Structures are given as C-alpha cells and as structure tokens.
C-alpha cells in the first residue's frame, strides 16, 4: 500500500468514528454552521463535528501547520475531500476566509497579515464577508466607488457595499475600494481588510422578494483602516480580486452538489395534475414539463462532455461558456411551470392552508430569479459568448 492509500484508510476510519450520523445527511436551508466569533450551533452533533474537525486542523486542511492548517499537500487534500463526499459528511463550517481570502493571503499577504489573520481563521475565530458589489456597481464591478483616502495612519473609507452575505455576523470584510480616482477604472482599485467592529460601520439586512435573507447592505462613514491591512499592492486590488474569484469558482463547484435538492418538476406537476398511471393529465403542461426535463438533460450531458474534454486536454471554453446561462434559464422556467401547475395554491405566503412543499415551490420560484442575476447575469453570459467565443466585434 502506498503512503496515499494508507492516508486514505486512516481518513476513512477517522471520519467514520468522528462524524455524527446526523452530519452525514444533506443540509437543509440554513443548516450549515457559519464560523466566526459569533458562531452558533443548532444541535450538539453540529458542535461536536465542528470542534473535532477544527482540532484536527481540517477546516483548512491545505494550509501550513504553523498557520493553523492541516499541513496537507494537494493530493492529500483531495483524498480528504473525496472521502468526505463519499461518506456524505457535511462541511463542518462555512467561511469565506477559508475558501476565498485565505488562499489569497497565502499568495499575496505580508508575513504580518498571514500571522494575524490565518491561524484564527483556520480555528474558526474570524468569520469573513466579501465587500465587492455596490449599489451602482453590479455587473460592471470595476466601476465601484467606495472611496479609500490615504493619510499617515492608513485609509479613511466612505461609501456602501451591497449583497454582502452574512455581514451581520462577520468579524472582518475583505473589500474592494477606490484608492485612486484619476486612474482608469480597473487601475485605481485596492483591497482592504476591514474590522467590522470599526466605528462608522452600519449593517442592514436585506429582505428579498422571497423573504428574509443572508444578504446585507453595509454603510461606511469615515471608517479608519490601518495601512497594514492593505492586501497586495496599492491600486493593485483588481488583480488580487480576479485571483480571488478563481477560488470562488473552485469553491462553488465543490458546494454545488451539497445542497438538498429543491422540489422536483415532474413530481410537483404530476401531483397537481394527476392522470392515470402517473401521467400528467394536462397535455399542455405535460409538453412543457417534457421540454424542460429535456433541457435539464442536455445540460447534464454537456456538463459531462466538458469533463471529458478537459480530461482529453481539449479547449472547453466554447462549451463551458454556455452552462451558466443554460442552467439559470432552465431552472427559472421550471420554477415558473411548478407555480403555474399549482395555480393559486402555488402562490401562498404563509403556512395556513398551504403545504410545506407548496410554500417551498413559491420560495424557490422567487429565489430562482437570482440565478440569472448573481455571479454574472444572463446578459453578461451572452456578451461573453458573443465576444469571446464567436468573436463578434465591439
């Protein structure tokens, strides 16, 4: 048995022994632990699983031991992740500090920044939020305006960030700020680490069309940030952010399969319009459902083809550039069809008279609207295809 194989056997045994059975089921909405100084647990099993993984250094298994990580190389990290997936272990905690800013600090951070921020982050003591989007800088992120004016002690920050997940529980924010008004828009941006307890910060949670959410708007009024909290070069924040967004894509793909599946299209419509032998009685809806199931099917096949192309070292961009658009639009149309099939029963807001599934359909329908907005809107996806795949002129 080679060393990696021995490691795998050990990992499997440890996970079997230490991951409570209730932590080996798909997490429901809001059932993942957000780590940070204000960490909260919904069950004893959650706390146990959290503490055991933390003490093992496996919140950040790939970080160096002296920075609070597990000291594993990429191959060993992959073994750990594979085994956790295979055994259906939930991630013990969620923290943008570990998936996003941590790797960036390992690459671009000063020694002082690494020592100050990484060990407590790896132990779950610092929870992070991301300050990128602004009310007037969404799809066009580089037009962001939150200003950071330099003085002897550091920076004075004024402005606002929006769509900041969990800002109301976070200890620190990594934020993109405008440090030079004169430069071309990508060139005048810096990245700062901002203590959320600083005077002058106000956090307001945002209610969405679907109800309560983890999104917040954060206001900055003459907030002081020390010079040592600048990440990378002054005015070099755009390059750091691009690197960070690569980590985001990796993290997103890791978490994509984690979520509990929502209401399923065929099941919902079949129950709403039951015909004989499991058929959907309404011919128009049945045709629509078949079309949508087919779109989801070709999408899965394309995902599979992309994986095969990548393995064969073929250029995947032509195919991969279509996925976000296709997934978002199909998901939205499926949600619309479920609501339509349920009729007014699919448009209830609170429990009286509506089943949990019906309310879930309603929430999912509203939530799905964000799929073609967040993370690069559908229009941006089409722009990317038109320009970078098809080579259509500016």
């Amino acid at each position, binding site marked *: 048995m080679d060393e990696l194989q021995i490691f795998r056997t050990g990992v499997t045994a440890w996970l079997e022994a230490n991951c409570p059975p209730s932590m080996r089921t798909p997490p429901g909405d809001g059932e993942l632990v957000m780590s940070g100084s204000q960490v909260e647990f919904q069950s004893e099993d959650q706390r146990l699983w959290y503490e055991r993984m933390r003490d093992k250094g496996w919140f950040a298994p790939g970080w160096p031991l002296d920075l609070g990580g597990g000291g594993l190389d990429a191959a060993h990290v992959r073994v750990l992740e594979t085994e956790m997936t295979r055994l259906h272990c939930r991630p013990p905690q969620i923290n943008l500090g570990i998936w996003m800013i941590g790797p960036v600090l390992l690459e671009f951070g000063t020694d002082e920044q690494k020592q100050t921020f990484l060990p407590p982050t790896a132990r779950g003591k610092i929870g992070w939020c991301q300050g990128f989007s602004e009310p007037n800088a969404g799809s066009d992120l580089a037009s962001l305006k939150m200003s950071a004016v330099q003085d002897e002690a550091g920076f004075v920050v004024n402005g606002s960030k929006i769509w900041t997940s969990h800002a109301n529980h976070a200890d620190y924010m990594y934020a993109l700020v405008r440090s030079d008004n004169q430069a071309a828009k990508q060139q005048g941006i810096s990245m700062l680490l901002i203590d959320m307890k600083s005077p002058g910060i106000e956090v307001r949670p945002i209610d969405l069309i679907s109800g309560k959410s983890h999104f917040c708007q954060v206001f900055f009024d003459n907030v002081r940030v020390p010079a040592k909290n600048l990440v990378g070069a002054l005015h070099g924040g755009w390059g750091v952010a691009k690197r960070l967004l690569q980590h985001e894509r990796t993290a997103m793909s890791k978490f994509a399969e984690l979520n509990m599946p929502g209401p399923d299209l065929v099941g919902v419509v079949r129950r709403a319009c039951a015909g004989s032998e499991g058929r959907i009685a309404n011919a128009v809806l049945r045709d629509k459902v078949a079309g949508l199931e087919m*779109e989801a099917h070709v999408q899965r096949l394309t995902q599979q083809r992309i994986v095969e192309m990548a393995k064969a070292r073929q250029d995947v961009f032509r195919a991969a550039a279509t996925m976000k658009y296709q997934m978002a639009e199909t998901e939205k149309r499926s949600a619309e069809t479920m609501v339509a099939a349920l009729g007014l029963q699919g448009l209830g807001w609170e429990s009286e008279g509506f089943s949990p599934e019906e309310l879930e359909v309603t929430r999912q329908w509203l939530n799905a609207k964000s799929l073609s907005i967040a993370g690069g809107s559908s229009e941006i996806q089409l722009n990317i295809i038109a320009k970078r795949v098809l080579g259509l*002129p500016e």
Partner: protein
Amino acid sequence: MAMLFDSEQQLLADTARDFFAQHAPPAALRKLRDSKDELGYAPELWRQMIDLGWSAIVFPEAHGGLDFGYKGLGAVFEQAGRNLSATPLLGTVALGGSAVMLGGTEAQQAQWLPGIIAGESLFALALDENPRHDPSATVMSAHAGGDGYILDGEKSFVVDGGIADRLVVVARTAGTPGSSDGLSLFVVEAGSPGVRRQRRNMVDSRNMAAIRFDQVAVPAAALLGQAGQGAALLDAVLDRARVCLAAEMLGVAGWLFDTTVAYLKERIQFDVAIGSFQALQHRAALMHVALEMSRSAVLAALTAIDENSPQLPALASLAKAKLSETLELVSNEAVQMHGGIGMTDELDVGLYLKRARVQQQLLGDASFHRDRYASLLGF
C-alpha cells in the same frame, strides 16, 4: 459513457468533411434540383462513398461490414448534412440496413447486407401513411396467403422510396390502428407486381415517394423478426435512424450558424459591422448555446447505440427533439439576419432552411418526441 470521438472516429469525420465539401457541396444539390434529376442523387458519388467503406460502417464483419459503430456513421451524417449532400445513406443504411441487421436471421442478413455494403442494392423504410410520423397509426394490412403474405395498403412520404430496389414495409398482421401490437416488417422487392410508386417533389429536393401496395404477394421468408411482434424491432431501427438524422441535422444547423456569424462580421450598415449590435450578438449567443447542447445530445445518443444502452430510446427522442428545436431556431435566424438576400434563391441559406423543415418532420418532430420522452420517463 465516453461521448467524445476517439482518434479513428475523428479521422473519419475529417475525411468526410473534406469529401463532401469537395464532391457534394450545396451546388451539387442545386444542380440535381434544377435539372429535375430523376434519381435525386448522384450514383457516382454513392459509388465513391461505397469505395470509402461508408456503407459498411455499422454492419458486422461476418457479412462484409466494418463493425465500426454508429458513432462513426454519425460523423459521416453530420458532414453530409453540412453540405446538403444527396446520398442514399438514410434509407439504405440507417433505416433499411439497420432493419435487416437487427431483425434479420443469419440467412436474411447474408442475403441482403452484402448487397447494401457493395452498393448493389438500395433500401427504404415504407412506414408512415400520414403526413405526420406515427408508427402505431399503421393501417396497411398483411394477411397469410399464397406461400407467405399478401400486403395491401398505401404509404406516403417514403424517404428514398423512388430509388430503392427493396422496401422494408411495416404492415399490420393483427391489432387495430392506434396500437403498436400486431405490426410486422417485410422486405419487399420494389418491382413486385402490385407495387406502384409515385415521386413526391419536396421543398428540400430530398428523394421521397408515395407507394401503393395492391395485393402484393411476398414469400414467408420476407418477414423480418416475429409476425405481429414488430413494434420493438421497429423502435430499435427508428431510434438508430433518428439519431443518425439528428447528426445530419447538427451538420445543417452548424453550417447555418457559421455562415450567419460570418455574415454578421462582414455586413456593414450604419458604417459598422451589424455583428457589433447587441441585439444581434445576444441572438447569436443563444444559437451557440442551443448548438452546444445539441451536440451533447447527439454524441450521447450515438454512444448509447454503440453501448447498447437501455437509455437509447429516451436519448434518441432527446436528440431528435432538441435538434428539431435548434434547427428551427437557427434556420429562421439565418434567414432573418441575412435580411433581403436571405430571401433569395441564389443564397444557399434557403436550401438549408428547406432541408431543415423536412428533417424536423421526418421520423417525428419535436412535439412527437417530447411526448415519447415523457412516456418513457413515466409521466
């Protein structure tokens, strides 16, 4: 499931791309159309394809085939579609040949496959009796008589029906129209007494015929498979042909799309290339998304045939439905984005538009296959 072409399949695709572009471009179809060619295809082109081994690709080595699989055949179909090349490939290989291979006894295969492979015999599948594809609607009857069966009925829209020397005929030995029970398949000599064929001139210049069978006597040995149990065999044959047709449609859609994107880059209005307008860019991008999804569907379905996957029926319907939708979108956008010139017969776009619509209807349109897909998935 490996969806990508392997190196041999890729080589075949490259060879087919060059071959059809050189020997059977759209101009060749135009010539057949304008000269009102009786055959509707060029025998010398078919001869060259035979020499390249393309009639042999899917058939077993025991009968002179290459046993190379439908994925290879699909690669040829895509390139034929890209050039609108008129060939007997669909009727003779994908439909007729598949029927003999899947339904024929050793003796029947030995009797017919070598002729197909050598280019001595052309086949067609005489199935539909109505303008819209519907195998279970078959009315044509076959009853015991003479030393075999007597066939009586009428088939409309038989692809390659006018040029085939043998027809695989679907007839009812039992059951009532609307049910797939009681169907049987027979191989009938096209020259048999009582067979009358009439050419149908279609919008796409594809070879099509209406065929009347008037008390046509066939020997017992003409029956493929079990009498009355033909529905499963027919499904297997149709699914192979549907997937090949979807591959051909992918070629048609690919040409229309590439041609249109090129035009968006070169056509100047208001002093700029019209491809710089976002209204057109997004519509072009939508076509690209549809085409990538379509390619995945075709590759998955071709692979399913070669792997003998139980998923084939659903994947065949998926491919045929998706390609029908994609082709309708891309062909309409091609005409629209070319503007006035897109309405002219001089431009090849019109030929592709017309071929597209015929392909969409053949072997079931998108709504037929959505219905079938839903039934296969149990809803």
